[in-house]
C-alpha cells in the first residue's frame, strides 16, 4: 500500500550519494543550518567508488575539499604529489618529460587518495554535521527514482524505505546517475562521451625507497604511446602510503572499436618495464577495479537542474580530462558546494524554487563550466577530429619530416613547453594523434631503451574476480539484457572489465544456440561478477540499474 503523500517524510534537502560531490553539498547545506538527509547505496561510503586518484585543490576554484573538511589531508588522503612525469612509450624505448609545472599550474595542492578510506572518513564527518540539523547520513539505502507530484519533482523514491519529499534534491550519485536519467537530463547512449577507467591497487611497502621520496612526498607518472594496442587512452601510476594505484583511462568508443580487453591493456602497462621498474617482486595486487568516467567536453550538462533537482559531479558529466590530467573529484566538490550555497541563498530570499537556476549561474560565473567545456576545444574539434585531418597529421608526424620536426621542437625546448601548457592540454582533440601517434614518435625519435625484463605476473581475470567481495542479490539481477544479439550487445563481451571473450566466468559471454536446425551466436549475461562500472549501460542494449542498497560489489580500496 502506498501511503498518502502528506504522510511522506520530509526533509529540507536530500543529497543522493556520499562521494566528494555529495560530501561537499552536505557540508555546505549543514553549515547553513539546513536539515539535510544524505543517502548512500554502498554498505559503507566509498564501497562503490573508484578513482585514480589525484585529488586537486585548484587556486581558481571557489571551493576545494579542505575548505569544507579542513582535516582531510591529515587524516584521509595518502600523499601529496610533488613530482609529476609523462612517459612516452614506443616499444621498449621511452622518453620522459617532467610535467611538474603543468601539474602545479592552478594547483594549491594535490594528494593521492584511495576512495574507500577517504569517502568513509568523509561520511563520518557528513553524518556528524548533518545530524545536527535533524538529518544525517544513511548508507545501504538506494534511491531508485524521483518522486513526482503533478509532473513536478518533489522528492525521491528508494528501494529500502518509503518515498521522501524535500525542497531541494542534490543528485551526487556519480556516473550512470539513475536520477539524471529519470529526470531526462542525461542518457547513456554514445560511447564517444565516456571513458572507461581500469585500475589495480598494488602492494608497495617500500614506496619511499623505490621512488626516492620522503613520507610527505609523492610521485605521479603518466604513460602514453603504443602501450595499448592503438586504443586511445593513457596510463597512470600514483604513490599511496604503502600501495601504488596503477591504471589507465580509455576512450570507450576506441575500446569498443578495437574489441580490446581492458584487463589485458592494464596488464600491458603493469608488465611494461617503464612501469614494472617500480613494482615489488613478487607482484601483489590488492584490488582490481573499474568505472566509467564522463568526458565533460562532450557531456557536462549546460543546465544541470530541473524543478527541485540539481545534478553535481559525475552525475552532471562534470569530469574534466585536461589532456593527461584527470579532474573529476575536485569539480564534484566545487559543484556540490555551489549547489548547497545556492539553495541556502535562495531559501534566505524566500524563493527556494530558484535554487537550481542560481546553482547553474554560479557554475558559469565561477569559471567552472569554462573548464569543463572549454570553448577552445569546441572550436578546434570540428577540424581536428575530422578523420582526414587526423590521418594527414599522423602520417606527417610519422614521416621523416615529422620526426625531424619533433627533434627540432625538442632541441628548442618547445616540445616540453607545449606539453606543459595548460592552454594546449585543454584543447587536445580526441584523436589518435595526441594519445598514440605523437607520444610514440617522440619516444621513437628521442627515447632511450629501457631494460625489457619484467617481474610482474598479473593475476588472471578469474583470480581478480575471486579476490573481490560481493553481496549478491540472488534472483534479483540489476541489469537485464534487452537484446541478446551480437550486433546489439556483443561489444560488452570484451569491453566489460570483468568479462572476456572465451572466458566463462565473466558477466557477458558469447553463446551459440541451435534453433530450427541452424545455429546462432548470442550474448548471455550473468551479473554475479559485475563491478557496476556502467560500461554495458552504454555499449549493450540493457535495462541498467544499480543493485539495491548494500548489495553487489564492495571495494575496499577504490
Amino acid at each position: 500500500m502506498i501511503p498518502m503523500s502528506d504522510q511522506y517524510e520530509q526533509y529540507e534537502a536530500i543529497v543522493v550519494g556520499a562521494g566528494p560531490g555529495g560530501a561537499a553539498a552536505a557540508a555546505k547545506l549543514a553549515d547553513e543550518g539546513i536539515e539535510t538527509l544524505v543517502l548512500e547505496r554502498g554498505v559503507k561510503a566509498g564501497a562503490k567508488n573508484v578513482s585514480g586518484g589525484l585529488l586537486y585543490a585548484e587556486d581558481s576554484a571557489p571551493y576545494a575539499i579542505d575548505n569544507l573538511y579542513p582535516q582531510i589531508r591529515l587524516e584521509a588522503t595518502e600523499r601529496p604529489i610533488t613530482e609529476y612525469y609523462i612517459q612516452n612509450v614506443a616499444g621498449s624505448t621511452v622518453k620522459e618529460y617532467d610535467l611538474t609545472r603543468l601539474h602545479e599550474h592552478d594547483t594549491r595542492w594535490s594528494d593521492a587518495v584511495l576512495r574507500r578510506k577517504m569517502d568513509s572518513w568523509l561520511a563520518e564527518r557528513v553524518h556528524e554535521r548533518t545530524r545536527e540539523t535533524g538529518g544525517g547520513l544513511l548508507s545501504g539505502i538506494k534511491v531508485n527514482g524521483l518522486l513526482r507530484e503533478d509532473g513536478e519533482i518533489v522528492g525521491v523514491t528508494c528501494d529500502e524505505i518509503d518515498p521522501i519529499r524535500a525542497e531541494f534534491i542534490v543528485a551526487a550519485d556519480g556516473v550512470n546517475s539513475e536520477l539524471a536519467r529519470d529526470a531526462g537530463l542525461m542518457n547513456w547512449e554514445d560511447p564517444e562521451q565516456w571513458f572507461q577507467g581500469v585500475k589495480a591497487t598494488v602492494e608497495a611497502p617500500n614506496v619511499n625507497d623505490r621512488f626516492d621520496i620522503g613520507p610527505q612526498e609523492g610521485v605521479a607518472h603518466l604513460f602514453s604511446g603504443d602501450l595499448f594496442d592503438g586504443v586511445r587512452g593513457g596510463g597512470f601510476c600514483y604513490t599511496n602510503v604503502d600501495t601504488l594505484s596503477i591504471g589507465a583511462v580509455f576512450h570507450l568508443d576506441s575500446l569498443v572499436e578495437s574489441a580490446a580487453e581492458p584487463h589485458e591493456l592494464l596488464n600491458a602497462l603493469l608488465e611494461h618495464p617503464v612501469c614494472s621498474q617500480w613494482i615489488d617482486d613478487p607482484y601483489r595486487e590488492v584490488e582490481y577495479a573499474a568505472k566509467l568516467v564522463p568526458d565533460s567536453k562532450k557531456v557536462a550538462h549546460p543546465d544541470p537542474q530541473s524543478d527541485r533537482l540539481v545534478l553535481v559531479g559525475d552525475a552532471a558529466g562534470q569530469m574534466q580530462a585536461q589532456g593527461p590530467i584527470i579532474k573529476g573529484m575536485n569539480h564534484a566538490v566545487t559543484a556540490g558546494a555551489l549547489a548547497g550555497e545556492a539553495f541556502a541563498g535562495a531559501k534566505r530570499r524566500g524563493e527556494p524554487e530558484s535554487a537550481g537556476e542560481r546553482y547553474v549561474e554560479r557554475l558559469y560565473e565561477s569559471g567552472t563550466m569554462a573548464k569543463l567545456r572549454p570553448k577552445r576545444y569546441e572550436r578546434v574539434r570540428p577540424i581536428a577530429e575530422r578523420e582526414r585531418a587526423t590521418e594527414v597529421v599522423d602520417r606527417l608526424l610519422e614521416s621523416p619530416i615529422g620526426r625531424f620536426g619533433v627533434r627540432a621542437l625538442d632541441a628548442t625546448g618547445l616540445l616540453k613547453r607545449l606539453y606543459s601548457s595548460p592552454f594546449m592540454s585543454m584543447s587536445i582533440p580526441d584523436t589518435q594523434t595526441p594519445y598514440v601517434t605523437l607520444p610514440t614518435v617522440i619516444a621513437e625519435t628521442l627515447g632511450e631503451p629501457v631494460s625489457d625484463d619484467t617481474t610482474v605476473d598479473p593475476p588472471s581475470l578469474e583470480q581478480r574476480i575471486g579476490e573481490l567481495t560481493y553481496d549478491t542479490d540472488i534472483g534479483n539481477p540489476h541489469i537485464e539484457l534487452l537484446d541478446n544479439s551480437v550486433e546489439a550487445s556483443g561489444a560488452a563481451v570484451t569491453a566489460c572489465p570483468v568479462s572476456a571473450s572465451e572466458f566463462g566466468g565473466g558477466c557477458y559471454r558469447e553463446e551459440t544456440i541451435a534453433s530450427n536446425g541452424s545455429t546462432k551466436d548470442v550474448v548471455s549475461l550473468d551479473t554475479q561478477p559485475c563491478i557496476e562500472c556502467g560500461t554495458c549501460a552504454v555499449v549493450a542494449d540493457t535495462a541498467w540499474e544499480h543493485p539495491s542498497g548494500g548489495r553487489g560489489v564492495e571495494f575496499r580500496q577504490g
Partner: protein
Amino acid sequence: MHSIVLTKGVPDFREGQVSFDEDGHLERGKTPTVMNPNDEHALQAALQTKVRHGGRVSVMSMGPPGYGDVLQEAMESVYADDLYLLSDRELAAADTWATAIALSTGIEKLGLPDLVFAGFKTADGETGHTGPQTCWALDIPMITHVTGLSVDKDERRVRARRLVEGDVAEIETVEAPLPACIVVDSEFESDYRTAGEHLALKDLRETTVERAAEYDQHLTTWDHTDLNLDPDYIGLDGSPTIVSSVDPIPKPPAEREATMVDPGDAEAMGELFDEMAALSGGA
C-alpha cells in the same frame, strides 16, 4: 513506552564451541555461555518499539553471576537502557515454572511495563514455557509466535502478525490491549520504513557501543531477599518438574535397521502399530 525483554544464557551449541564428555553429556564448565539465539528476535522486537515510539528497554535474566556477559551481549544488540540479573543460590536449578515466578516478581518490582518480550524456546531446555508462564503469573494478555508488530501508543493497543500454531504457512493478525506479553518467533522481521527510524537506530548504535563496554554500571543484581521470595517456592525446591534422567546424545549406529513400510499397505501398517504399541508401554 517501557519494554522488558527476558533473556537467558545457554551453552554455545555452535560447532567448535560445544563440548561433550565421553558419554555424550554436555560439559557445561567447558562450554561457553551465550545469549539464547532465539532471544535475539525478542530483542529486535523491543528495539523496533523503542525506535518507533521512544522510551526505554530493560533486559532481565535469571542465572549465575556469569550471565553478566549475556546481558552485555543483549545490550549491544538491543541498545538496552538497563539490565537486571536475578541471581543467587536459592534461585539455582529452577525449572521454567520457578523461573517464571522469579521473573514475574522481578518485573513487578521494576513496575509493570507496556510490553514484555520473550524469545520462543531456549536452545538448551527447548520447552518454550518460560515466556508464557511468566505472562500467566503477571496476568496480562499474551501473543505467541509473533513475526511482526505495531503499537498504537495513543489507543494503548498492540497489533501483531503471528503464525497460527507456529505454522509458517498460516498467518493471522491479532490485537491486545497494553500491557501485553509478546513471545517472538524466530521468523520475526524488524521493519524500518523511514529515514527517521534508520537515523534513530544509528544514534542508538553509537551511544550503545560506549554503554555496552561499561555495562556493569547499568546492571542491577537482585537475590531472593531483594525480591522478597520464599526459597520454598523458587529454585530447585520450587520446581515441580522432575527430570528423571537425561538421555545422552546417542552415537549414530554403524548400521541402522530400517524396514520400509508402505502407508497404503494395511497389513504392514498394522504390524508396525503393534510393534510401536509395545514400545510405548501402553496397550
